[in-house]
Every structure is written in C-alpha cells, then in structure tokens.
C-alpha cells in the first residue's frame, strides 16, 4: 500500500508536485500516468525518501520510507535505467544491494534468472544496452521480494518481446497480492497493463479511477457522416437535437445522437448517406484532452507555426 497526502515539491519557483494525494492498493497494477515533466518521477523519488517533500508526506505500508527496517524487502523500485555503476558487473551490483538488507546471496542468481541476465551477469553493466540496463533495474527491484513495487517507465528501451514480458511480470506481481505502481506517459501501454489509474498533470491529480471507468466516462459519441447534401443533413440533425459541424473535407461530425438515431433520421428525411461512422475517441485522445492544459513541454504543430509566422501578404 502506498499513500501520499498533500505531497508538494518545489524547485525554485516551479511547482513540480502540487498537493498530491492518492492511494495505491495491493493486488492490482496501478498506472501512474502523466505527460513528460508532470511530476511522476519526482513523486516516486519522494515516496522512496530520496527527495524531501516541501509539504505533505508519503507512506509505504503505513510508514515513512526512512523508517522501514528492511527497505528493500518491503519496497522495490526501478527509478531509471542508470542507477548502477557502469564499471561493476550485474552480479556484483546485485550482490552489494543484497548485502545492504541481509538478503541471501542465492537470491541474486534467482533475480538474474527472472530477468534473463544470467548469461551476461559477469559483464560490466556499462556495456549493457538500454534494455539490458532496464532488466538489471527490474532485477534490483525484485531482489528483496518486496510487497510494494514502483516502476518508473519500465518499458523504456525494451523491444516488443521485452515490453510483453514486463506487462506479464507486472500483472503476475500484482496477482500475487503485491502493490504495483507503474509510471508511464503512454496511455495505451497503461490500458493494456493497468487496472487502476492515477493521472496527473503539472503535478496535480487529474483522476484516480479504474481504467474501465476512465475510458467509459470520457468516451465521446461523435458520428461522422458523408453525404452529397450536407446542408439539408445539418439542418435535419440540428432539428433533431444533435450538434453537427462540417469539417474541411465536407464530412459532418455530429455529436448528441447515436449512429442508429442518425441512420433512422436519414431514412425519415430521405437523405442519401455515403458513410456513417461512429467515432470512438481513443484513450489517447481522452488523455490528451484531459492533460492538454497541463502539458509542460508542448511542440507546436506545423500549422500553428506557419500561422504565427505568416505575414500579411499585399
């Protein structure tokens, strides 16, 4: 169980994490979702006692991290792929980590085996690829067989095979009754892995809910219609209570009525329909919409840039 209450962290004038309260329960994978720079990593570092919050507090199994008797046996964390010395072998890295918490040395071989690094255990970790480094980080997290696990962007640098493996690993860990918090900026990845979501933007809580609930609550019901008589169709839609708009390509996008209702409407008014498509907003769209006001680093689209650069001609 991870609990944060009013967690706040400032860097100078920038508020990285702002009064953040959420609870991560055991038994399910909880996705920690937010755009880059939204404060996910900072929050995780505060949970682990690495960064000191300016206000609020974080508890793991009811204690502050610094008060845990055997931290690695209660909490495992993958913070970033590079929390090891490049000159040390994978086995030696895990050996010293095990010694800090009186973890039996045999456990080192077990976790090396779990993450598939046994064959390269004696190689200097600096020679590892990003994916192998990520696996070593996951091995470190699993070392103490902890009941609480935090993974910061665990699939970074992994190949499709590795991504699938991490997904299974996270679900298996949760199904064993562990508390699993996984951060990501990719909603679709989370939809495949997580059951619950903690969504943040600019360090503040946007949603704390289940993935299913998040999806259904924020699903839009727009329908796209292509017709040779758009004006008449729009008029009919408006009278029926829908909110239609005509796009650049001449197609109508209407919300407020289902595709079934719109089909019936077309038949009543003898309107020709070439295409009738329910538009389901992807999870990604929902996420983008929710966090659009809280994105820190936004790239401007080419159109926006062109518009702002354009000089009046004549």
């Amino acid at each position, binding site marked *: 169980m991870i609990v944060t209450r009013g967690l706040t962290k400032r860097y100078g004038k920038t508020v990285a994490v702002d009064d953040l309260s959420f609870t991560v329960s055991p038994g399910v994978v909880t996705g920690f979702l937010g755009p880059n720079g939204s404060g996910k990593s900072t929050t995780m570092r505060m949970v682990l006692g*690495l960064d000191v919050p300016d206000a609020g507090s974080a508890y793991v199994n009811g204690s502050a991290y610094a008060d845990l*008797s055997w931290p690695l046996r209660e909490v495992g964390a993958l913070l970033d792929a590079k*929390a090891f010395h490049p000159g040390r072998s994978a086995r030696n890295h895990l050996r010293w980590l095990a010694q800090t918490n009186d*973890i039996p040395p045999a*456990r080192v071989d077990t976790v090396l085996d779990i993450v598939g690094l046994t064959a390269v255990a004696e190689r200097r970790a600096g020679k590892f690829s990003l994916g192998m480094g990520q696996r070593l980080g996951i091995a470190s997290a699993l070392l103490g067989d902890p009941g609480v696990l935090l993974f910061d962007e665990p699939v970074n640098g992994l190949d499709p095979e*590795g991504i699938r493996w991490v997904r299974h690993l996270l679900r298996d860990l949760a199904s064993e009754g562990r508390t699993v918090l996984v951060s990501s900026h990719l909603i679709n990845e989370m939809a495949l892995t997580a059951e619950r979501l903690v969504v943040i933007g600019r360090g503040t809580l946007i949603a704390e809910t289940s993935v299913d609930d998040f999806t259904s609550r924020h699903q839009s019901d727009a329908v796209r219609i292509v017709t040779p008589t758009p004006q008449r169709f729009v008029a009919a839609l408006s009278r029926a209570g829908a909110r239609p708009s005509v796009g650049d390509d001449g197609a109508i996008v209407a919300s407020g009525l289902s595709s079934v209702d719109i089909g019936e409407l077309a038949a009543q008014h003898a309107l020709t329909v070439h295409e009738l498509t329910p538009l389901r907003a992807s999870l990604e769209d929902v996420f983008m919409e929710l966090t659009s006001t809280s994105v820190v680093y936004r790239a401007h689209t080419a159109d926006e840039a062109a518009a702002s650069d354009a000089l009046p001609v004549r």
Partner: protein
Amino acid sequence: MTTLPLTTGRLTSGGAAARPGAWRAGLRQSLRAEWTKLVSLRSTRWTLLITVVGALLVTFLSTHGALHHSRGWYRGFDPTNQSLAGLAIGSLTLGVLGVLAMSGEYGTGTIRSSLAAMPRRGALLTAKVVLVGLGTLVIGEALGFILFFEGQAVLAGGAPTASLGQPGVLRAVALSGAFLALFALLGLGIGTVIRHTAGAIAVFAGCTLLASILLSSISESIARFAPEFIFANSVAAVVHSGDSLSVTIGIVLMLAYCAIALGLGAVLLNRRDA
C-alpha cells in the same frame, strides 16, 4: 531473449525472509555492502597499482638523487624523510580514491540505489568512512615501511642511512603511513560535499598540492598549515626545520580538516535530495 518463467515467490516463501539477529538494516549491513562496492571496481585496483608503482619510483629517484654528494650537502640530511618521498604520490591517489568513493555514486546514479537500500544516510557515510579509512590505513602503513626500506637500501650505496631503532624514525614512518588514510578521508569528505568527480578532485588537489606549493611561494609561515606541507615537513620528518609545525599539532590540524569536510558532507548528505 526468451520469455522466462516467473519464479518470484510470495513474500513469505521467497528467499528474502527476515533472518534472526539484526532487527533492521544498519551499519553492519552497510559495511559489507560498501566493501563489495569498493573491491568490485576496477578503478580501485588501478588506483592501488598506480599508488604502489608510483611511490616506489619516486622514492627511488629521491634517494638515488641524494647519493654521492659532498660532506656539506648532507648537513641536516634526513634519510627517513628522503625515503618517504614516494608517499606524496599516495596522498594524491588515495585522496582521489576517497573522492571517488562518494562522487562516483553521484556521477553514475548509484547513489539512488544506495539510499533506497539504506535510507539512514548517516550509516552509508559512516560505512564509507570506516572502510576507506581502514583500507587506506593498511595500505599506507605497508607502503610507508616498504618505501623506508627501499630508500635505505638505495642510500646505502653512498649516503647516510637511518634505521628504525634511531630516535624518531619509527614514529615518522608509522605516522606517515597513517597520514595517508587522512588524505583519503579528506578526499571522501570533499567528494561528499562537491558530489561531482571532476570538481571534487580539483578542490582536493587545490587543498593539498597546490596549497602547499602556492603558499610556500608566499610565506612558509602560512604554508606550514597546508596538508601536504604538514605531511612532508612535520609528520614524515625526523629532522625538523624551524618553520614546520610540531607532529602533534600537524596531525591534530589534519584531523580537523577531515572532520570539517566530513561533517559538512554529512550535513549536506542528510539535507540534499539524491
């Protein structure tokens, strides 16, 4: 890479069940872990190799250069001091070892693993102090005696020599070896305060070598407070010049430098985000 079967056991059935004895992770665990860290790095072995080879070479050159001079040249000649010249190399290399013991963790990100495993930060620093201090003490003592005998063997070819039985000689050799450990601890303290390897090494070199060279060019009465000057002219000397501090004051001063660096390091380590 093939997908491996998951063998993560439940908390209770897993290999990490609590053992009787210690009730929580503390200094004992940190000492073992820090020892593994120290010996599992190639840089440690390289540093020690450079220290030994460099020191043997410098002592050879220093004592060889003192052979076959006129009788007047040997007035005030200190064969012990001459043979310990190679320890100056050790004061630098072991100091860098001390710097790296902490700054290396920040440079590589290992510090986050270290502090997550041992959130009681004082224990981490204490373990490093004990291991770096004791390790370099053993190396320093061994090196001190080896250099002394090497130097006397060379000087026997045509210059006055010293023996451990003469007054002040054993003290100078033994304390000089131990003094190397203080350089390593000073380095560790500076590495903990500065955290960036390059910057910390620069500050360490500035405090030790440069300070004694630069201050000597200004005034010996100021330079005698510099660590390297205390080392060469107070601790490693049997024949003392007028300007140098007494051995006791020199060592107390050096201990104070270490205490300041490590104390500041401890305060900052506890206060700063990792």
